[in-house]
């Protein structure tokens, strides 16, 4: 008797789990808008900075990273920077400027390779020229970065 009840409960749990995972993956690919089903596609662009040097609180050179052509429905879904910090660098702010002028700062300490993800730009238009720079909070900081902007359309 107990064995049957146990099997029944397991079956219910499995059905529930299956239905949840299917709806989540469906959400990833489609959405409903004005009775039309649209399918999301994803794409990205990326670019690297040169060596960014910041001295005594002054902003380093700003490096441009261009989106190139994008679909007119493109929407940012995430921005990631892989940053390589030179040894001996003081902590610094990593500055990322959107083509529309909005800017996000991220405080970085330590040296070596770091990965930083920003969600502040999500749902904005990725098109145009992005700018990346650093601002040291100490005497000197040196870093390079590679930025990837993911978008859906």
């Amino acid at each position, binding site marked *: 008797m107990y064995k049957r009840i146990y099997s029944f409960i397991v079956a219910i749990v499995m059905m529930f789990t299956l239905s949840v995972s299917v709806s989540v993956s469906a959400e990833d690919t489609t959405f409903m808008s004005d009775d039309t089903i649209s399918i999301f596609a994803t794409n990205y662009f990326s670019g690297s900075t040169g060596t960014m040097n910041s001295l005594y*609180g002054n902003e380093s050179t700003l490096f441009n990273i261009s989106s190139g052509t994008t*679909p007119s429905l493109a929407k940012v879904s995430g921005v990631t920077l892989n940053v390589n910090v030179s040894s001996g660098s003081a*902590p610094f702010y990593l500055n990322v400027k959107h083509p529309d002028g909005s800017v*996000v*700062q991220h405080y970085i300490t330590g040296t070596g390779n770091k990965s930083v993800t920003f969600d502040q730009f999500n749902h904005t238009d990725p*098109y145009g020229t992005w700018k990346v720079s650093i601002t040291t909070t100490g005497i000197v900081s040196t870093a390079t970065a590679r930025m990837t902007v993911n978008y859906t359309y």
Partner: protein
Amino acid sequence: MNFSSIGNLHQSVKIAQMKELVDSQSSPRYPGTYDNDPMNITNRTDWKKIVPVPDKVKQDLINAVKETMEQNGGMRHANEEKDPIHRIKQTYLNSLPKSERLSASWTLTEIYRNEAQRLVDFVRVKDPSWDWGKPVKTEILEEVYKSPNVDIKV
């Protein structure tokens, strides 16, 4: 004063100097360049809202979306100076004080994206083989604008 105390003093000064060097490298001495910039969105989400924009700007954007669809199959121009949507947005945003640009940018993006979505949905129904970058048949675009139904009250 004996030689050993002079040695200790010398060592203390050296340690203090090293400590100062380490401190200067580890604790913030200078602020971030954009700490007080009105366009700093590091810890803000309040700017993602719709604000009033002039009707002319809305209509110019809608026309720019149509132009993008006609000329580049919905793809933005590779050269941003020649991209009509970018040009209209930047011209308008630069006319505003910095404190108003964030929400205005959000609003303009919503306007042209809604129009682009409307066009893309229509084109896909009429020509299921259409994809981004592929020229849109002229008669399909003409049909879209016969009964515009353009909502510019966003």
